[in-house]
């Protein structure tokens, strides 16, 4: 921290400075430790489906987030949980959703979905949280009519199946 630059320096002032530096160090060190603990508790890796396919060993413990499109016709309700298949660039990933919240209405065939959870040892993705964005939402413009400049979309609206946060 700046603030006490050049100028007179009484013995007391130097002492106060020293105490302030020590105090700051203690505070910062505490916060760094807390930040590290919080980081290990909540870090989530973003992976693509092709990366998930090649994962093994300790990576399987990580909390990961994968995105893809819901393969048409793959959504199945099996005793209490929902199975579906995510697809991206020709690669597929089977997913089981085990959460309690009903899935968002935007979650349908071909929707863009974001799943968060763990990869089980059988290669199935255990999703605790599913977000879905309806891909066709803002394609309301009739065929043949195109904006003369490509306007960007409006605010994205991912409906979430399981509320994040505390």
């Amino acid at each position, binding site marked *: *921290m*700046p*603030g*006490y*630059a*050049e*100028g*007179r320096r009484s013995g*007391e*002032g130097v002492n*106060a*400075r020293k*105490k*302030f530096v020590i*105090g*700051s160090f203690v*505070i*910062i060190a*505490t*916060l760094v430790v*807390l*930040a590290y603990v*919080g*980081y290990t*508790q*909540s*870090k*989530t*890796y*973003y992976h693509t489906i092709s990366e998930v396919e090649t994962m093994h060993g300790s990576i399987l413990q990580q909390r990961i987030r994968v995105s893809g499109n819901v393969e048409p016709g793959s959504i199945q*309700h099996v005793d209490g949980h*929902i199975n579906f298949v995510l697809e991206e660039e020709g690669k597929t990933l089977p997913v089981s959703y085990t959460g*309690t919240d*009903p*899935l*968002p*209405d*935007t979650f349908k065939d071909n929707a863009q979905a974001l799943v968060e959870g763990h990869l089980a040892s059988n290669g199935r993705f255990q999703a605790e949280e599913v977000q879905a964005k309806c891909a066709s939402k*803002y394609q*309301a*413009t*009739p065929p*043949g*009519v195109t*904006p*003369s*400049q490509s*306007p*960007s*979309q*409006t*605010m*994205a*609206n991912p*409906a*979430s199946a399981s*509320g*994040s*946060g*505390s």
Partner: protein
Amino acid sequence: MDIFGSFALLLALVAAVYAFVAGIAGIITHRALLIKSARNAGMAVCVLVAVAVATLEFFLQTDNFSLAYVAEHSNTALPWYYKFAALWSGQEGSLLWWTFLLSIYVFFALFLNRKRHPELMPYVGVILSGVQIFFLTLNNFVASPFSVLGAADGSGVMHLARIAEGSGLNPLLQYPEMVIHPPMLYSGYTGFTIPFAFALAALLGRYPGEKWIHITRRWTMVAWTFQTIGILLGAHWAYAVLGWGGYWSWDPVENASLLPWITATAFLHSVMMQEKRGMMKIWNVWLVFVTFMLCILGTMLTRSGVVSSVHAFAESSIGGWFVGFLAIILAVCLVAWYRNRDYLRSDNQLDSLVSRESSFLFNNLILLAACFAVLWGTLFPVFSEWFTGSKISVGPPFFNKVNVPIALFLIFLTGVGPLLAWRKTSLDGLRRNFAWPLAVGVASGIAAYIFGFRNFYALICLILSVFVTLTIFSEFYRGARVIAARDHTDLFTAARELTMRNTRRYGGYIVHFGMIVIFIGIAGSAFNKDVERQMHVGDTLQIGPYSLLVQNFDETTNANYDAQRATIEVFRDGKSQMMLFPERRTYSASGVTETIVAVESSPLRDLYVVYSGISPDTNQPVLHAYLNPLVKWIWFGGVIVVLGTGLAMLPNRRNAIVLRPVESRISDPLTGGGTVVPAVGPISRSTSTHE
């Protein structure tokens, strides 16, 4: 018609460029006429942008779907106030809105100071028009709100096209607060441009004296107030609309709005170090610079798709422009600071650890730590991808772990700092000021523990809140008692007189008190409960003291949306209390489904009921009920904060001081608190601003 709007925008850009160039020329040549014309051009920008905004608003209200922006963000059945809000609901419109609010600020900054600070204002005008040039360039060439829809005919020639119906406003934005939240937040974001311009101008022009720091502080308070309102309205919107039972999820865009708020808060405190003691000048200048850069960063995060967020606009190439602009600002700030660093030399240094100075230093240290942690967590996916190749995000546990202790430490400083003397506080003074508030605080903590409150942080928060509230009230009481005895009035009148004589100090206390109320409300979240269950008609769900009886499930419809609705009767102690109607709406124009939460709010707790939808397995409706204690305190505390800030901006009432300067110096209640050096009394404020 659209030509009208885009032409106004283009002219605004021309005017801004002229203000910039003529301003620089005026500074070099010292020609008064040139400087005056640059100022007029700067003010003309506001008028021209207003014309563009009015044009776009006219198109929205008249459902002109030949305009791409209108077609994408509105529809015929939308109520007029949401058509109005559609102006800032998309990328192009909200950027125009940014420019508009900025230009209003610029207009007032230039107009109000037209006869003042002749050496400073030309620099201010140049910097402001520089910022305007950037945003107007975006408005004109990168994200024009006036682009029209076109269709190709058989031979491939484009013609103007008009579609019958727009795609509608995002349903999440169809909520009363969305009409007011973005203007407030944007007024905060854009407002920080003005203090930035004054600080940079003072540095570049080596403006003598400390006058500029007062101007900067004043404008920062204006922007800070809007930012506070904007953030709280946003939190309230998230709470009332998103339906997950909370108001803050550490979403990147929420964080982006918090960052400049934190640094501005730090500045509003450390600026006193400069005013009273001539310390921390470099630090203050950089706080102002960083606040502005964080505003630009926040605007970029919302728009570039760098980090994924509920709020984020779809990915677009606009991020590059912001990165470039940020780089320019940083470079200008660095050069300005490096070349004029001797201008910012400190007059004093820290004398004692137990002093007002050190409490400000700790306040700034801790606020900056919070800012850094939030920034780091927000940008972590970006950094981790750069450095390790894998994209990693951090969630709420990270932010909470760091920021909860920081918030508690800040509450502590809130109570202690204002009562510490400048330079050095005696042990005796400490005991006199803090002994009994601390004792009562600890006693209430012990009582709460006995009554079964076991959450560690919530207990600490309770103890500190009681302690700080008591110190604040005893400050009012001590001062009011002196005035009441002298003027023979009652305590209440005396307290008002006291406040009006030093609005800044006592307004500040009120802001502190409001923050305490907010923190108590946040601490209430430690005791949140929720239950989720499939419900038939006639089923009962028990949560806390309430039991919810499902009376009916039905459907309603109107032009804008269809809705599924649950009718729930709430009982408490066997007595019927109220009816709640949580809904799920499907909007006709966009086909998007949205949750309408039913909230029953009381000072002690909110009952928050969500109709989560139909379970796919059993085809039964699912209800999710939350019991959130003390949430109302957050909104109420926000009102107190805003009122306190407004009060702190009022000028001091001076008559009593002018009439009886000697007496008031001796019996000045404002230096109470065992201060060794008389500090921020009304005298030091009204006669000289730095000692």
